[in-house]
């Protein structure tokens, strides 16, 4: 690599900065530094003529490293760097500093000290510059195809959006028919429109364009050419990298030829096997060969392989007019190559039998809202009649019980968010159809938080639906009258009620779909404490996950209503599209690199990498070497800090670069004492610095800050070195324990701080000299207390006494 020729460009803001810092002294100081070949001072190097000076210097070849200062907090960087990159210099050889906010303002009442610190900061930048290397810009190809797991309302909408954008979309569903839970709901709120359309795409238009207006039914989405719908299929394995996944899928056999079936229903009529109908929550039975509703999609019957007698029977085979039934069909193994994956697996209802006191498992007339939805559905098993399952007689008195398993420390602690609306919707639908129906809803709170939701509560009261604020303790059954009794206190009346009911409807908690854990582990995703898929950041990235290229949406992340599922589905589609639209992932190689000579095969780094970017590759019998994937590596440096043999370096943050910076920062300290050295992460830790700067607070110039990507990169030796280089106190400033932007960095460094403290103690140094400061941006001013408090204490305990041979 050729020798570094550093150009230093100081922006003095039209002379403003000179009112605080002695810029002339700083300029002469910098001019004398080795490898500095050009020093300029102008008003503002981030634009116009002044910026042109840097560009010319680069183009002429006079300089091959740039250290520039400007006066805009953290925004000037971009302008300067982009311009210099255009001029032909690798952007990672450019260092941009802000002397106004980080040096002049915070120390303006001590201009001498501020000047000294400015010199230290510039020295650090120059020394580091000399060791910087150009960083490559990598490209990783991506496939323009997406796998969407789950064909419920969210999955379908995401599939529609992405296929209309031109992506190849594979929509996979483990049930034999699409639609998910939403399709069985009867009607949606607040639109009061039909849910069953979700499972039955039809269209009579000649070309499939953006047809879906207000319903999925007329959307024809199943006929979009680049949308491949796989039902009766499960994901078995996921391999590869973001942009290029290879997904292994098993398609269970339907035993019926998809092209030949004409849905004549003869097979179902003749089938001798009856089993409980799960689609209708066992309110009726179905046959072993069946279709859920006449317009289920795909429009092909299916044989339930657990119920069918196969060759012992064959009645359906004989009766089928098109010979569509093939009992020997085998499962198909399919391999798909996709660029991105969207998880839309939805939620399920909690098994209400767990709340034993409501007797869901032993009293047939105690049902859930899902069963009631099936009853209300005019196309359902009772064709809209509300009946007691025990004797099929019409029900006249209904009592709803809310929060069955939700908001319950013994079952699910959270509020399932949609159950109040579902019960209100059902109560209103029933009351409007059957004026004389006696309906009471027992609740703890009524939650109608969305747009147009409160109207449901109003309408329910207007219809004469009764409300009891109280959670029932028990449901009992009288065998003689075949009636149920609900024991509840109306807390508002302060009176015990014994509500008689023909039907008790439970509003059960909503839980993550079965199989979520396995799927999460296959994809490397995290589930939250309640078992739902966790988004990367609820505020800014609600449909992204910690794994690049994998997105989540809909009920899989938390129970939600149809409109919200819709929003999330389109968001996930957009994110997936953004990820794949360029056909490649472009990434700067600020990634970890492992020196294979030193790799000790200890297997720590793959485990500690929060992004699964490190794998072990076999070299000889039983021996491995760790390798980093440039694509997956997020550049945090946690592995660097973890490796016991120092075999890993993070490009652009190598140990020699960090050491040079640290030494320089701690060198000029005649005026500012005692020195406090801060390792600050670029995320929250660094924001503390920013916050203080923006608030124009004053603190001592003895605080010298070095930014690292994540505090996880800091090693114990670096901490000790800081003390050796003159720091009287070392602060590690990072994110809060549950908020580390790299998942685990700050928790890992916490352990190292403990270890370092013990070592300090052994060496006879006060362990309190080392501090771990955790904060977020909005609490950043806390660093001031750290700075001020430290000075008093450090003065009290006196300067550090290092052993002669330390």
């Amino acid at each position, binding site marked *: 690599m050729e020798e570094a020729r550093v150009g230093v460009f100081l922006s003095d803001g039209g002379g403003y900065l000179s009112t605080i810092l002695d810029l002339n002294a700083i300029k002469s100081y910098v001019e004398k530094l080795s490898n500095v070949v050009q020093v300029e001072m102008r008003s503002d190097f981030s634009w116009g003529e002044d910026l042109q000076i840097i560009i010319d210097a680069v183009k002429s070849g006079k300089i091959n490293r740039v250290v520039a200062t400007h006066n805009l907090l953290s925004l000037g960087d971009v302008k300067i760097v982009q311009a210099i990159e255009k001029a032909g210099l690798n952007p990672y050889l450019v260092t941009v500093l802000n002397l106004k906010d980080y040096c002049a303002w915070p120390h303006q009442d001590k201009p001498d000290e501020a000047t000294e610190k400015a010199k230290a900061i510039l020295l650090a930048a120059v020394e580091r510059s000399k060791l910087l290397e150009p960083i490559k810009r990598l490209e990783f190809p991506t496939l323009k195809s997406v796998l969407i797991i789950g064909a419920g309302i969210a999955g379908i909408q995401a599939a529609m959006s992405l296929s209309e954008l031109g992506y190849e979309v594979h929509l996979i569903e483990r049930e034999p028919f699409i639609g998910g839970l939403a399709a069985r709901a009867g009607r949606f709120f607040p639109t009061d429109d039909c849910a069953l359309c979700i499972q039955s795409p039809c269209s009579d238009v000649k070309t499939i364009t953006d047809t879906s207006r207000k319903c999925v039914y007329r959307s024809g989405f199943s006929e979009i050419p680049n949308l491949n719908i796989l039902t009766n299929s499960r994901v078995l394995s996921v391999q590869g990298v973001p942009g290029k996944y290879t997904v292994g899928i098993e398609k269970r056999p339907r035993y019926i030829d998809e092209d030949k079936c004409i849905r004549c229903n003869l097979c179902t009529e003749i089938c001798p096997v009856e089993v409980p109908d799960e689609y209708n929550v066992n309110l009726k039975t179905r046959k072993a060969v069946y279709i859920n509703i006449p317009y289920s999609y795909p429009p092909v019957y299916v044989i339930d392989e657990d119920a069918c007698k196969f060759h012992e029977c064959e009645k359906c085979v004989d009766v089928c007019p098109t010979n569509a039934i093939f009992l020997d069909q085998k499962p198909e193994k399919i391999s798909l190559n996709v660029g991105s994956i969207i998880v839309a697996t939805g939620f399920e209802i909690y098994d209400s039998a767990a709340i034993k*006191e409501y007797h869901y498992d032993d009293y047939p007339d105690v049902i859930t809202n899902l069963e009631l939805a099936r009853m209300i559905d005019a196309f359902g098993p009772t064709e809209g009649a509300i009946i007691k399952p025990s004797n099929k007689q019409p029900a006249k008195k209904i009592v709803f019980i809310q*929060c069955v398993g939700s*908001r*319950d*420390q*013994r*079952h699910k602690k959270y509020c399932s968010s949609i159950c109040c609306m579902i019960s209100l919707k059902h109560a209103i639908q029933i009351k409007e159809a059957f004026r004389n129906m006696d309906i009471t809803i027992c609740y*703890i709170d009524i939650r109608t938080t969305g747009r147009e939701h409160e109207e449901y509560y109003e309408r329910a009261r207007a219809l004469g639906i009764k409300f009891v*604020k*109280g*959670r*029932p*303790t*028990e449901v009992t059954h009288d065998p003689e009258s075949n009636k149920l009794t609900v*024991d*509840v*206190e*109306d*807390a508002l009346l*302060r*009176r*015990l009620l014994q509500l008689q009911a023909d039907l008790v409807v439970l509003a059960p908690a909503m839980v993550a779909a079965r199989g979520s854990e396995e799927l999460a582990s296959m994809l490397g995703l995290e589930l939250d404490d309640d078992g739902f898929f966790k988004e990367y950041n609820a505020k800014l990235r609600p449909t992204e996950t910690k794994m690049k290229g994998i997105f989540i949406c809909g009920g899989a992340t938390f129970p939600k209503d149809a409109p919200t599922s819709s929003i999330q589905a389109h968001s996930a589609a957009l994110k997936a599209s953004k990820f794949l639209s360029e056909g490649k992932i472009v990434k700067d190689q600020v990634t970890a690199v492992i020196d294979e000579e030193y790799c000790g095969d200890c297997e720590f780094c793959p485990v500690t990498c929060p992004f699964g970017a490190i794998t072990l590759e076999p070299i000889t019998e039983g021996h491995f070497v760790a390798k980093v994937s440039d694509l997956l590596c997020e550049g945090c440096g946690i592995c660097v800090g973890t490796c016991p043999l120092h075999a890993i370096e993070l490009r652009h943050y190598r140990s020699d670069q960090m050491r040079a910076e640290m030494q320089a920062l701690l060198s000029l300290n005649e005026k500012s004492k005692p020195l406090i050295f801060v390792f600050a992460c670029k995320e929250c830790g660094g924001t503390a610095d920013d916050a203080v700067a923006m608030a124009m607070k004053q603190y001592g110039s003895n605080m010298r800050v070095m930014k690292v990507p994540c505090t996880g990169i800091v090693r114990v030796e670096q901490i000790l070195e800081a003390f050796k280089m003159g720091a009287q106190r070392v602060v590690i400033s990072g994110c809060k324990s549950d908020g580390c932007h790299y998942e685990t960095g700050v928790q890992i460094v916490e352990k190292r701080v403990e270890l370092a403290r013990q070592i300090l103690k052994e060496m006879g140094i006060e362990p309190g000299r080392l501090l771990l400061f955790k904060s977020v941006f909005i609490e950043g001013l806390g660093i001031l207390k750290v700075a001020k408090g430290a000075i008093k204490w450090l003065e009290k305990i006196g300067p550090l006494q290092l052993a002669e041979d330390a």
Partner: protein
Amino acid sequence: MEFSEKITNRIGGETLTSCYQCGTCVSSCPIARITSEFNPREVIKLAQLGVREEVITGDAIWLCTSCYNCNERCPQKVEIAEVIYAMRNMAFEASNKPAIYAEFASAFKEQGRVVPVSQFVEKKRADYGLPPLQPTGVEALQKILAALSFGKTSSKEGEDK
């Protein structure tokens, strides 16, 4: 200190603040079914709001029959029966107690038994073929109770810690 905090600081009272007034305890309560004088949800609410007098001097807290049905059914795992015990403890320390409890206290302290066994009954054991009763560890118990200042009352209800 807030009244509710005094309760949560005592043994048994820790879960007072979890209650969200759903009323499951009331419909579970065999006593509430018979008399409206006792409503466990109301007692908890009064305590949460700091209405000390009614809780400590009232009769309600003495009507709990300790069946623990409320504990069992409470969706917030509030230990209602224990909280009521804690409130009784505070009432006792403030000298508000049904007469019978004073008897229990002294029997326990002096004889090591809440229900004393009379000499007559003890003698009859042999007639039934039962082995003689072992001596009661009253001395040991008294030493333990002394460490707790058991049964002491004062003008203001005690704080536990």
